[in-house]
């Protein structure tokens, strides 16, 4: 178990660590990272079986996840630049020959490179924190769903770990669907609520659509590369990479170019991109910690992870990366416009998640895997923070999430940390200068402008950045600051009941609420929002600090490594399969800053499969510019300005002169925009579009099939079954019971038979 460390040391000690293939090891303590959540899961299951009513499952979970986090940190500290594969037990092993590609292997083996470690760091870290948060948040469900929640939580971390750490696509797929299951279970946590059940179902099915793409991609990968293990894939892809380097895409088979597209479809499903994004906003039906962890920080970035992990393959296609980039950019824009028009703060956050995921994809597509990964990390922190803050509000105000019914809650006692966390999160999300979100977003947008042909995407992203700042601070200015005003949500009467309600309960509460709206502050008398407790506050504070300090990542650098702009996260990425140094970035680096500090990473231990530079063979590649300037240099100012503008607009429209919670100046401006705000509020009717263009036709088809089955297929069968009966009934009259009839029948029969036989056979 512990020989991992020594092996790492060994590897790093070896001269010229640029080994061609990863180091293979037996089971290692990395496997324990998978085991810990399973232990947590078993414990929670036992608690459920013995109906434990304490918070034991939560704390046990926190302990397990913290242990996992510690192990990941240990891995990080001991990592070398070389990927390590630690083999676990066998899962799939099929063999039909000795040759290449005649063996299907997918084991519980882990592929540990810096990308994995990067992802695992924030996955386990955030999971630990959010589990702690949830221990308090879910306390209302003690004895009912508490164990179930944490069991699913543990299962999620396990699945996510499989997804990230697996050394083959199938194990990734296991994690991929596993997180989908947990997402399903946790979205549907309040299973008595039809909307939650519906949302859970939607999430699972939408994901399945993407999964099919992924599955086909896996199949195609195997067929063309003869393996689904990363190391073999990368190895086998080498000839194609050479071809791609030389720009000879026509030498790469069309189907190989299709692989990344198929994988991307899977990624779009999981990461809620057009056209499969509609499940994510609905997924907010789940408990907030779930939204924070699964639907903001970790699971939804699985798509980004997949693209990053398979980045070498994405480079093989002329179309894959532009596709990814355009889908990302359009998603970012679309989600932002929808987010601007929503009133439910959790939904706003959800749309902002979709939007930010779009950024990441655009980044990946714009040849900035580093920027995308950086944004994943920063986004994980600040979005988790935002969600948890929203969750604290929701928790305290009995499920109230409507920004028209909440205002100025910073004035309430005990809500300081929440307000602070909210502010930090909003600043990050808006890309306020020198926050971590600012750096990562800049990197993304900058590289779009650098890469030729991607400039429109850069403009879209820039514009979206402004929108993001606006809708983010719209929430902040309306909910956190301004005059104090609040109405409790619909969980008031059932605060000590279970969280779920039947549909009728809902109506009942809505009715009560209507009644109360006639008196201003009607609830002031009975309703006291309860401020978050220590666990929530601790977590919020921690995350705030982390989000703020994450900007430091931009300036930290790995020891013994060439420094790359963007700091430690890009450096980690550059050590992994996602390493891709944009030729344009290099161009810029040489000419713009003159910083020769980093040479091509392949000189420094990056495995040779990394197609580091198509550009190395293509010195004449033109880097794009931002209106003639160096994009990276200028983007600091431009995006900062855009962010400011967005915040300012929000300030004017939603803070200045606002006296009530329900309305702000913005409302007066809305009619000027015509029907557009309405459309945006209805999410551009995409759900309806899907409903009428896909769901209903399918339902009709299904009904037709059902009818067809009953009438035609079964009908034919019954017809065949009826034939004997029909013949019988037809000839039954011959059995008239009359002697003469019988005699006539016999005579005629004899005559006919003789006649037939003679005609047919005797000339």
């Amino acid at each position, binding site marked *: 178990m512990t020989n991992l460390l020594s092996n790492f040391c060994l590897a790093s000690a070896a001269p010229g660590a640029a080994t061609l293939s990863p180091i293979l090891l037996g089971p290692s303590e990395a496997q324990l990272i998978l085991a810990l959540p399973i232990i947590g899961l078993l414990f929670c299951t036992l608690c459920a079986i013995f109906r434990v009513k304490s918070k034991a499952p939560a704390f046990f979970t926190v302990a397990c996840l913290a242990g996992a986090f510690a192990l990941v940190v240990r891995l990080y500290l001991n990592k070398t630049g070389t990927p390590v594969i630690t083999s676990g037990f066998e899962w799939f092993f099929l063999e039909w020959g000795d040759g290449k590609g005649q063996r299907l292997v997918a084991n519980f083996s882990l592929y540990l490179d810096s990308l994995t470690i990067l992802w695992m760091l924030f996955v386990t870290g955030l999971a630990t924190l959010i589990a702690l948060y949830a221990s308090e948040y879910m306390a209302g469900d003690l004895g009912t769903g508490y164990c179930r929640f944490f069991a699913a939580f543990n299962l999620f971390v396990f699945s996510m770990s499989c997804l990230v750490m697996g050394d083959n696509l199938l194990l990734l797929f296991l994690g991929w669907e596993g997180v989908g299951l947990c997402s399903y279970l946790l979205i549907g946590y309040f299973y008595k609520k039809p909307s939650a059940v519906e949302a859970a179902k939607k999430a699972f099915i939408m994901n399945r659509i993407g999964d099919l793409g992924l599955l086909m991609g896996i199949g195609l990968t195997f067929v063309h590369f003869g393996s689904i293990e990363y190391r073999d894939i990368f190895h086998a892809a080498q000839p194609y990479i050479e071809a791609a380097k030389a720009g000879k895409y026509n030498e790469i088979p069309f189907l190989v170019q299709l692989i990344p597209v198929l994988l991307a479809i899977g990624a779009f499903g999981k990461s809620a991109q057009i056209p499969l994004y509609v499940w994510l906003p609905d997924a907010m039906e789940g408990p907030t910690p779930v939204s924070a962890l699964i639907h903001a920080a970790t699971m939804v970035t699985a798509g980004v992870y997949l693209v990053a992990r398979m980045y070498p393959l994405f480079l093989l296609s002329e179309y894959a990366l532009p596709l990814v980039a355009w889908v990302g950019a359009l998603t970012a824009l679309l989600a932002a416009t929808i987010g601007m028009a929503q009133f439910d703060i959790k939904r706003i956050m959800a749309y902002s998640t979709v939007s930010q995921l779009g950024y990441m994809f655009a980044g990946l597509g714009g040849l900035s895997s580093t920027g995308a990964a950086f944004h994943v990390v920063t986004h994980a922190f600040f979005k988790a923070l935002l969600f948890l803050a929203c969750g604290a509000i929701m928790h305290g105000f009995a499920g109230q999430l409507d920004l028209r019914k909440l205002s100025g809650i910073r004035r309430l006692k005990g809500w300081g940390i929440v307000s602070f966390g909210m502010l930090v999160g909003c600043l990050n999300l808006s890309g306020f200068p020198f926050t971590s979100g600012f750096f990562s977003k800049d990197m993304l947008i900058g590289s779009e402008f650098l890469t030729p042909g991607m400039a429109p995407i850069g403009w879209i992203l820039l514009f979206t950045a402004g929108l993001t700042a606006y809708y983010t601070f719209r929430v902040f200015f309306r909910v956190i600051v301004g005059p104090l005003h609040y109405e409790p949500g619909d969980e008031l009467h059932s605060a000590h009941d279970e969280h779920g309600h039947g549909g009728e309960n809902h109506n009942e509460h809505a009715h009560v609420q209507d009644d109360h709206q006639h008196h201003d502050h009607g609830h002031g008398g009975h309703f006291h929002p309860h401020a978050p407790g220590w666990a929530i506050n601790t977590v919020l504070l921690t995350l705030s600090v982390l989000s703020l300090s994450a900007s430091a990542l931009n300036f930290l650098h790995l020891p013994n490594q060439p420094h790359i702009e963007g700091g430690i996260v890009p450096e980690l990425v550059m050590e992994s399969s996602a390493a891709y140094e944009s030729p344009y970035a290099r161009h810029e680096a040489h000419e713009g800053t003159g910083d020769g500090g980093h040479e091509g990473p392949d000189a420094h231990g990056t495995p040779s499969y990394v197609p580091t530079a198509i550009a190395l063979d293509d010195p004449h590649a033109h880097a794009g510019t931002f209106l003639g300037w160096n994009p990276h240099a200028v983007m600091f100012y431009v995006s900062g300005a855009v962010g400011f503008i967005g915040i300012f607009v929000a300030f004017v429209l939603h803070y200045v002169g606002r006296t009530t919670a329900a309305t702000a100046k913005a409302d007066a401006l809305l009619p000027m925009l015509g029907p557009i705000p309405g459309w945006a509020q209805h999410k551009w009717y995409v759900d309806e579009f899907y409903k009428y263009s896909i769901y209903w036709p399918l339902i009709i088809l299904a009904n037709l099939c059902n009818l067809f089955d009953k009438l035609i297929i079964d009908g034919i069968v019954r017809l065949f079954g009826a034939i004997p009966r029909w013949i019988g009934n037809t000839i039954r009259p011959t059995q008239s019971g009359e*002697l*003469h009839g019988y*005699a006539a029948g016999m*005579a005629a029969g004899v005559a006919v038979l003789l006649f037939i036989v003679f005609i047919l056979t005797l000339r």
Partner: protein
Amino acid sequence: MTTEFTATLAQAGYPAAFQSITLAHYLFISGAMFSLGLIGFLTRRNLIIMFLCTELMFQAAGLALVAFSRFHMNMTGQSFVIFIVTVAAAEAAMALALVVLLFRRRESLDAEEWSELKG
């Protein structure tokens, strides 16, 4: 075949009148008898007459046998006929017994009376 047969008869020294009566004539008569029997069986409703019609069919076969017997110049066919007549007698006995039984029951010998079993 017919002409050959006639020639054969002539060779065997049969009178000319016989020569014109060939096997075909017998067979025709036999066939006609059989058909008449059959038609009678199908058309008559009285059980006794129907039985007689079956007898007619039997005897048609008998006639054919005798004719063939003569044709083949052996006695097998004729001995067959004797057996047929015997069997016909036995059948007649049975038929009469049955007819009596039935008449006792229904006071009628109409075959149509007996069509309770059907389907």
